[in-house]
């Protein structure tokens, strides 16, 4: 079986420098892969290149075995959903309308047309999953930052795309919603044979939810493997240039990373 998404020797030049350099990664059905690395390592650029938003300089990206550049925009959007930082909204849009935006790529006509009963069913289901049902008639700009982030997640789920690209999905969320959100992603991957690529700064959350972690530095994939293989003190020290303590999580037994600052 083809991997859902694959990049081979991918390079992306951006702002006159190599933001992604000779990077290879494979995303299989059921898998959550976390991308971690210092600021400016090229993590977000990688996501945007995988989605076709930034042109690649060299290398190959295949979506379900097909080269990305051969697919049209709407086909790609039926396969890949993105959750990025929220954009500022200047128009009054209800939560339901916002989430229904996720059904755009499935419409029979690209510009005109109306949501079908099925579109509505899907929207209502994902609103339930993200605990937003009661807010569905509210305006997006009346919501709190965390609620808006969940609405973004709901819209991505509404696309029914098997690949989720998440860029700092938990940045605006409190502890309980961070876990809820990633549990949702986990559930999606387990039940729908979906896969997710998560760019995050939260290494411990990544350790808990990801099957695999790719460690990036200066556009390159320095190391890739299971959390246990990647989250080793010497590797992290080399990439993040800070001394870290890695011990076992008291409950899961997985690796737990604590940066050591001025503790000798």
């Amino acid at each position, binding site marked *: 079986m083809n991997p859902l998404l694959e990049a081979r020797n991918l390079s992306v030049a951006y702002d006159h420098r190599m933001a992604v350099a000779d990077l290879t990664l494979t995303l299989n059905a059921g898998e959550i892969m976390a991308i971690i690395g210092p600021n400016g390592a090229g993590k977000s650029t990688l996501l945007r290149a995988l*989605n076709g*938003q930034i042109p690649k300089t060299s290398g190959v990206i295949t979506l379900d075995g097909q080269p990305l550049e051969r697919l049209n*925009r*709407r086909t*790609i*959007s*039926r396969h*890949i*959903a*993105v959750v*990025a930082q929220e*954009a*500022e*909204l*200047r*128009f*009054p*849009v*209800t939560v*339901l*309308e*916002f989430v*229904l*935006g*996720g059904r*755009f*790529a499935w*419409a029979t006509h*690209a*510009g*005109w*047309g*109306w*949501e079908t009963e099925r579109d509505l069913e899907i929207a209502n289901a994902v609103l339930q999953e993200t605990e937003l049902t009661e807010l569905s*008639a509210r*305006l997006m700009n009346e919501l709190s930052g965390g609620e808006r982030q969940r609405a973004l997640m709901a*819209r991505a789920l509404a*696309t029914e795309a098997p690949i989720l690209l998440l860029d700092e999905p938990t940045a605006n969320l409190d502890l309980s919603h961070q876990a809820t959100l990633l549990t949702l992603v986990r559930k999606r991957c387990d039940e729908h044979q979906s896969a997710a690529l998560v760019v995050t700064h939260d290494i411990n959350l990544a350790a808990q939810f990801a099957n695999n972690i790719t460690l990036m530095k200066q556009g390159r994939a320095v190391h890739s493997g299971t959390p246990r293989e990647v989250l080793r003190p010497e590797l992290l020290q080399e990439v993040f240039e800070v001394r870290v303590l890695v011990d076992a999580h008291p409950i899961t037994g997985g690796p737990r990373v604590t940066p050591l600052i001025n503790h000798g």
Partner: protein
Amino acid sequence: MNRVTLRKTLISCALLGGALLLAIVSMSLLGSERLPARDSLCALASLGTSACGLTPDQFDILFQIRLPRILLAAAVGGSLATAGAGYQALLRNPLAEPYLLGISNGAAVGTMIALVFFGAIEWVRPLLAFSGALAATFAVYRLARGRAGATPERLILAGVIVTTFLSSVIVFVTTLMDATRIRSFTFWLLGDLSGTSKALLPVAITVTILGALVLTLHARSLNLLMLGERDAFDLGVEVGRVRVVVFLVASLLVGSSVAASGSVGYVGLVVPHLARLSLGSDNRISIPAAALGGALFVIVADTVARTIIAPRELPVGAITALIGAPLFIYLLKRV
């Protein structure tokens, strides 16, 4: 706000269409010359085939002066409101408006160049007005666009820069005209429907209907574009293509209306705002509603302009600005 459905859209448009028809008929009875209501209605119902007891002078006032002017007002209002809705989605900002962004000025420069150099050939006017509008749109877009779309600050600054630059071009071109035309020109620049050109009326009406139709057919893409270009791209909108369509169509709408009537301001701000306020932000309903509502708005504004100090007249742009400027201030405080 309930979700927008086809049914709701059709009902709203039918109601607005009915109101528009009512306005066209009733406003044609108003004016400095009183027309007998019954005979006029009878003549209008016959679509001008029967005089129904109107004197030849009255008949001419109705069909040669008032009706063309009202229809032009409808076309200009529909064009500007639709263009406003388009620019607002494109620039992701409810303050975007052809007049305030200097796009009307771009079209005015085009029209003036046509008047000075190709005065006799009427069809050159909308063509050059369209080119001027397109160039100004492009300039504003490049100047205003930041990382998060056009912020209100950037947008207004870009509008001020383009407007003032083009204003000096207008002053320069005006010096090339003979002195007798300058007064009517100042009126025209403020937006004036009194000089309704017979040749441009069908052009303006056709462009308005087609423009509103094309933008409505892109409404679902525009809904997503309004949320951000990146989001729209991620969700499957061919952002580049839709952007070009809006650029061209909105510039065409502004070009044809400015060529016919000068720069009527604030229509593109007031009308889409009211449409969104009453019907929601979904462009599938707010664009056709803005087109019909814009026609209605300018018909009423122009009737006020030509009757309030009758037999003298005000430029219609003075009336629309009187309503639009306070609303702009209110919107500025909110976005």
